[in-house]
């Protein structure tokens, strides 16, 4: 049996370019505000033209805050097997902070200010036997953090 590529938890949330995963967001061409996920319009009340375009956001950011989830969230969220995990708030160079799960990040290594990079992880296998993945942030390797 050949395995099909993993499905995203939601269409249009992230995409792979040149082998690297990026979050899909929106940039305002007039005031340079960035949004995640993609937005219909710029929300800056002082921006009048609000010409927006979809962009791929930076893959690296710094950890602004985090929390470990000890209780299993209600349905819609699926994770097999379920284990407590860490959620982070990651500041990107575009001037936004993005929430996401942290991967490969043992408790004793997590600290505010650490450099993280975007990755993907499989959360569960759906009823059709396909793996479903979400975006996560993992500690950046030295090489990539410097890039």
């Amino acid at each position, binding site marked *: 049996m050949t395995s099909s590529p993993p499905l995203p938890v939601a269409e249009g949330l992230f995409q792979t370019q040149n082998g690297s995963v990026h979050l899909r967001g929106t940039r305002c061409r007039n005031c340079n505000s960035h949004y995640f996920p993609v937005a219909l319009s710029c929300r800056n*009340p002082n921006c009048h033209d609000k010409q927006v375009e979809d962009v791929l956001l930076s893959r690296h950011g710094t950890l602004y*805050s985090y929390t470990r*989830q000890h209780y299993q969230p*209600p349905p819609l969220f699926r994770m097999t097997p379920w284990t407590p995990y860490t959620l982070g708030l990651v500041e990107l160079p575009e001037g936004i902070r993005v929430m996401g799960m942290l991967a490969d990040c043992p408790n004793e290594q997590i600290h505010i200010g650490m450099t993280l990079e975007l990755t993907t992880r499989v959360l569960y296998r759906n009823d059709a036997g396909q793996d479903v993945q979400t975006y996560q942030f993992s500690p950046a390797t030295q090489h990539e953090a410097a890039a």
Partner: protein
Amino acid sequence: MRPVYVLGVGAHAWGKFPDKPQLQLALDALRAALRDAGLDWRALQGLVAASSRFEGGMGWGLHANEILQAVAELGIPATNVGGGCAAGGIAVHTAFSMVASGECDVVAAVGAERMPKGFIPRPPGIANDISDTDYLRWVAMGATNPAYWALETRRRMHDHGTSAQTLAKASVLMHQNALGNPLARYRKACTVEDVLASPMVSDPLHILEICAVSDGAAAVVLGSQAQARQCGGRLIEVAGCATATGQFGDPSVRVPTVSTAAGHVTSHTSEVVGAVRRACAMAGVMPTDIDLLEMADNTAWHVLAWPELFGFFEPGQSDWMLENGQLGIDGRLPINPSGGFLSFGEATTAQGVLQVCEMAWQLREQATGHQVQGARLAQSAVLGLGANGASVILKA
């Protein structure tokens, strides 16, 4: 605008009432408020209800219509307002405006809620795609409401050195305040050790540092000065009453979004800060004039962070104020003498109305068991989904 006064307030106790429909809770609270005012249904010239998404309102949020059809077909205007967990505060503001404008002499506002158990689930009927962040936050990361507050809490610990013990003390204080309040659901004293030993939900927040969900209902009757004089008792004026929405660049991690602005171009929690400032401006008062604050303490973090955001204290100062007893019922700024959300549990749309009831009882010196001595000026603050904020200032 003409001055507006509180004619009567009333509330149903908070708890779990599986045998009492939402409509019954609403009627009980309204009857209590009318009795308090010494009025009957025929005195009402308008009814404003906070729309609940959980029960009643014929599925369309028509809770005021449902009440009138159930108990008094007066022909008066029925207004139903949304605002998530701030809907109660917004309902009071609408009733205030109807009296202040001169349109009506007597208007009631009511919020009544029966909450489902556990984490608040996503509402039905919205597309399962990235246009809805309330979908995304679940499927992509399982972000529960406590997770959002925990992110704020962890950052506060980093920025201000707030300790786990201080956070626990905020919860201990709320539970202590509730001991003397028969309306509160949780009336059991707890210690810092109890809080820290309670199950961790989203660390650093323990279950005793996060508000539960409850059933409950509250109502207020507002009216003109002539009406207030007829009703008798101490005159309680609605000195300030404001609603506001969020501002661009607000860095708060807002449920149910999955991203926020990194800059600090405007206040954190700008929807509530905006409402608090507007209410103060309307009343012509400064934070230092306020004798007590009834605010939405969804978690222990809120007890510390919100008074600072509103300008009552400098950033980071709440920890010291709490540790030195200044936030207690006999402190410099009593916070939630009622016991707050941590002792009541949140009955979402009823909460903003209950805050006004509590302030009225405090200013009339009827808050038996949790009375703030000599209180003359009280302020409320509540936050709701959709970046809604509301704040009311009562003056004796």
